């Protein structure tokens, strides 16, 4: 039963990570282009690097939280375990995503202030 829990957790985490990474890279590109003053090559490079970081962080988190010290669990416990694990992963992903957005907004506002001061 625990093997089943692990497989479902890994499968769902992989699917979720890929889906969220694709959505973020597509929607985030115009925003990154704006952050880097229409410099599209830098924006694309940063986009790719952010995706790699996102994959690494998520893979690491899933790996760390995979193990359960339980044996002989029933169906109810199995469902609760999978749900709790996936919920924790998604919440951490969401909070990390908001921190990313805040950081990018900060970079954009501070980069924008430089040409204004020079003129």
């Amino acid at each position, binding site marked *: 039963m625990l093997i089943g829990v692990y497989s479902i957790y890994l499968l769902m985490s992989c699917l979720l990570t890929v889906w969220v990474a694709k959505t973020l890279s597509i929607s985030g590109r115009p925003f990154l282009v704006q952050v880097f*003053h229409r410099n599209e090559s830098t924006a694309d490079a940063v986009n790719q690097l952010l995706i790699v970081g996102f994959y690494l962080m998520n893979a690491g988190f899933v790996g760390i939280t995979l193990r359960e010290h339980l044996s002989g669990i029933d169906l*109810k416990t199995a469902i609760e375990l999978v*749900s709790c694990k996936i919920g*924790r992963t998604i*919440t951490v992903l969401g*909070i990390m995503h908001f921190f990313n957005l805040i950081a990018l907004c900060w970079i954009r506002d501070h980069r924008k202030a430089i040409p204004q001061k020079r003129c």
Partner: protein
Amino acid sequence: MTTMIISTYAIYAITGIGVAIWVARKLDIHGVTFAKNGDRYDTETGPAMSHLLVVGFSLVAFGVVSLALGIGSNVQTVQQCIEALSSKLGWVIMIIGMLHFLMLTVFAAMGRKAPAGLAPTTATNVSAAPLGTVAQLVNRLHPNE
């Protein structure tokens, strides 16, 4: 007993995820309007930023729904099923409501005008920012050219 608990979880999951998707869709549709009011985002980045915020909201909302699934006590009768469901769903829907108000605050901040020190971020302005500064300088030094 197992059938009852699994049906309770199924009803909970369907309702919780349904509410989360409904709120996320509403935010996605109406959030873009806020970005248009301010001058921080242009026509391209406004919808993108709004969509990114909605993705974050959806992740946290689905996470909360999924985290709160476990029911401590055993559910054996229909009465216990209804009680457990209403208590769980009540908490989850209230948290989603709070997240929704938090998102409204963020969208309202998006719609504000940029501070005086920051230039508006329209496409032409941003692309011309470094060159525009040099051009203005050249104009000031050599007004006849």
